[in-house]
């Protein structure tokens, strides 16, 4: 069981990802955008961060960069949720320090197998 921070502004995606991860026995905490996520990581430790890219307030790539500047998050796996269409975004994400990505659309099985890759 791992502690996972899930950051996405879409309620439906958050519900689905969170439900799936919880079914697999993980502990999930949700945040609606980058700003909220940075707030949450102050008081919680996570084994994995999963973040959407396009979000209001602070996007997922900026969040990734900011997390990497926090000592306790230097080596934490960070996965970005992205669409296949944004190859450039993946590279931006990597440059900011993301571990990898999960391409939308994805099904619960794919989500879990990708999460298993980094846990």
């Amino acid at each position, binding site marked *: 069981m791992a502690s996972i921070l899930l950051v996405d*502004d*879409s*309620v*439906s*995606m958050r*519900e*689905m990802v969170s*439900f*799936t991860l919880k*079914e*697999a026995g993980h502990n999930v905490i949700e945040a609606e955008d980058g700003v909220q996520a940075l707030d949450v990581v102050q008081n919680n430790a996570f084994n994995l961060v999963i973040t*959407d890219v*396009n*979000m*209001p307030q602070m996007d997922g790539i900026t969040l990734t960069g900011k997390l*990497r500047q926090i000592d306790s998050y*230097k*080596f*934490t*796996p*960070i996965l970005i*949720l992205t*669409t*296949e*269409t*944004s*190859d450039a975004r993946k590279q931006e994400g*990597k440059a900011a*320090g*993301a*571990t*990898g*990505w999960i391409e*939308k*659309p*994805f*099904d*619960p*099985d794919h989500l*879990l*197998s990708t999460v*298993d*890759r*980094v846990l």
Partner: protein
Amino acid sequence: MEIDINLSQFHDIFFEESFEGIEVMESELLALSPGTTDKEIINTIFRAAHSIKGSAGTFGFSEISDFTHKIETVLDNMRNDELEITQQLISVLLSAVDALNNILISGKEGKPHDPTLVENVSTQLEEISSNTTTELTSREAVTAHRHKQTEDTDDNPEQRWRIGFFPHEKLFYTGNDPLRLIRELQTLGEFAIKAELDNVPEFDDLDVHNCYLGWRIQIQGQITREQIEEVFAWVEGDCRLEIRKEMERRSTKDRRNEPDHPGRRKNDAEHRSIRVSTDKIDHLLNLVGELVITQSILNRACSDQDIESSEKLLDCLEQLERNTRDLQEQTMSIRMLPVDNVFQRIPRIVHDLSIAQGKQVSLEFSGEATELDKTVLEKIGDPLVHLVRNALDHGIETPVTRASKGKPEQGMIKINASHEGGYVVLRISDDGSGINPDKLLATAIEKNLVAESEELSEMQKQNLIFLPGLSTAAEVSDISGRGVGMDVVKRNISDLGGTVDIWSEQGVGSTFTIRLPLTLAILDGQIVRVGNQIFIIPLHSIRETVMFNDKETNTVAAKAELYKYRDEYIPVTRLHELFNIEPETGNDHPGLLVVFDIGDKHVGILVDDVIGQQQIVIKSLENNYKSVPGLAGATVLGDGSVALILDVLSLTCQSANLLNTG
């Protein structure tokens, strides 16, 4: 870990969220002014679209995500300054949002959406983005690429790969762990690995956060380069990676012993429905039709056999008959679709028209699940829409007028579909002003469509509305007057083998009743004989067959022969007179009267004998000869002979005309 999660539990929330997204898109688009450079508005719209696209794909609504992708591409071009923001562009995007809303509503209700609406906007969006330099990779292309990969794996021969994997020192800072990548690679096939320790520094210089190791890996199996690259996709640029292939073929026998690779299989659920061209289905239907005929011929041939000696044969034949019928029903059902497909077009039309005309209308549907042949369904859409437009345009009054007549301000249009006999019946009724029969008559006389001297019943006057050339320029408004008159509506429906009737009462409203055959290809037929000729009558139209008694007939007003049938008098058509056949009917052989339901009335056709029933495949007379009034087509009988199929409705009309003029 295998976990079974039903995604449909998130559908409600997805739709709710998407409708919110649509509201955002719409209001932000309206706030967008031409020529603006404010990127924040465009970003907000883009985010909403992007979010809908991503979720839609995940929850399996590929149509929604594909369409949103097109909107997103245009928005992306806008925020990259590749598209100038013009009023026209904003309008196109607004109509795209409308279309998206439409697909979402259909998706939510689990119905297919109207493709024409979406296609139109799609084309516009594609045109806009094709004029710019960058284009987002289309989702379809990526998916296709993935499929290809999967296929490659299936056909691929055994291959041996040599991989050199040398991570950069700072690999751990991306959260990646080489051990996990190697473990994943191991799942692909037979695996051997050797670590390279050359770069490990002296102990004192060792930084535990750095990666100093490299690996040489040999892996063998049905593995493609793409599969290997996919394992290392996340560390591309963070390592030195060498992938070399060594071809080595093993015998097929060996390969068969290898277990299949788990995973990477496409979900079977995705293949639950397939697209098939209607040509193929029609061809299949035609073949089944031929099979039905062969079955009949076989039945007849075997009925002459000695039963005891061929009991088994008869058993088989019975079974074959059942199977043939099942096969035929199933084949027919492929072409059947719910009428709802057509009804869906109507709410928007009513909505837009009622606003344009300042009328209040409530729209009510019933029997949406009633199924109709696809061809019939496709062709009934326009007539139906025309009738609804008419109801709104000419029928429903403005709220003020309605109030002054003591009616509720909100008018009502009801559309109902149901099965009646062998027909599907569509009723379009409104509670509007109704049709003024005398006004219709006056117009018809004025246009020389009806002689002034002619005396018409109320019903006949109302039916004048279907006469070609009746509608006048003055009556044509920009709404219902689109160059399609009621005569075209009637003709379209007749072409489908259907009928349309009108009932109207001034001040109360009008009802149009469309009767359509379930299918156009096969029907149950009653075989009848007149003299030495065999005819087929569609079974579903027959009410009953009674012995004919000449004494019960009356000739009324020298116009029509009426027969006392139960408590009413019904018009009678003597088939032998109509087709000029020498009949057997006489004093010693009174003949049989076949009685039909036509609407709520009955008519009778006099024949010599009723022989039997048979499924018949309708072969068009028009295609092979020419259209003959009173005949719906021809068919091949069980004994291989050809018989004509009677078209009861036109037959009785024709008979009435014959008597009228004679």
